[in-house]
């Protein structure tokens, strides 16, 4: 709920920070990808590579998920 509210009202870097913290604290935090898709639907525009193919949020969400899972595995 906090991340959904942040997607609606806060700047993108706040959402990214919150998603990173969430992905670090919770196991298998797939919500980060869903939040990315929500961001794309709310603000996204279809376009070429410069617009991230209309999937910048999804790409960022997957990147955060994969990187944080890797970091957690290495820290274990």
């Amino acid at each position, binding site marked *: 709920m906090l991340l959904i509210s942040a997607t609606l009202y806060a700047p993108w870097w706040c959402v990214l920070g919150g998603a990173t913290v969430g992905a670090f604290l919770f196991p298998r935090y797939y919500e980060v990808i869903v939040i990315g898709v929500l961001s794309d639907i709310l603000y996204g525009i279809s*376009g070429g590579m410069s617009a991230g193919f209309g999937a910048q949020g999804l790409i960022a969400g997957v990147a955060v998920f994969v990187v944080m899972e890797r970091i957690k595995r290495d820290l274990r």
Partner: protein
Amino acid sequence: MKATYRRDNSPTKRRFFTLAALVLVSFLVLSAGPVRGVLSRAVYSTAPGLWELGGNIEGSWNAFWGEFRLKRSLVHENETLKEEVSRMQAQVLDRNLLEDRVLALEEKLGRAGSDVRVSANVLAGPGRSLYDTLIIDAGTEQGILVGDRVVYVGAGVIGTVVETYPASAKVRLFSSPGEETAVVIGGQSIPAVAHGRGMGNFEAKVPQGSLVAIGDNVLIPGGNMILGVVGATEEKPAEPFMHVFFRTPFNISAISSVEVIKSTP
């Protein structure tokens, strides 16, 4: 004797497949136009109401904290604002006079402009996402169509409507990365293509030796609409072009209302 243990990686595999499936489904949802359209309409049936609610709460919060501000700072702010208002009133008078002259000239030439404009509040600005888009609170119910131009304070053109919903619309800013717009630069009306660089910034290339100076206006051809003001130029002897960097004359992330020019059917 050395014992070897086979690592059980089935949960890892399962996790990988879950992630791959989720990414694939998300990508298909975003890339398939009709599915994305249905989802967008569903989201936009609630989101504008939530944005308006957020705006109202923010306004109330600011008003509440305003009561606790120091009196002295308020007096100083009041004086500054009064000065600003008087300066702007003078500018408006000057502008009204010029507008009357332009209208009179256009009528004489038989080219009187009569566009229909719809005022709209900005629900979400470009700072909310990596996309350079605006969400406004006017949509198909107000007669707004995809492709309509969006302007700020009368003449500063900022973008075009790309998606419409009953009570809201999505505006792609001309400064979006990858966006290309035909412009004319300076008093000599040098034609160029402006490339969006995000958050109200643009870059254009003009031939070396062109008379472009800092502070020159950049206009959309044919519409008398300002796109930006030249902030810097860069010339390299090895290149046949001069790079012109310009930005919108206002802070694009701070705008709260815009006008949509309705296209004539």
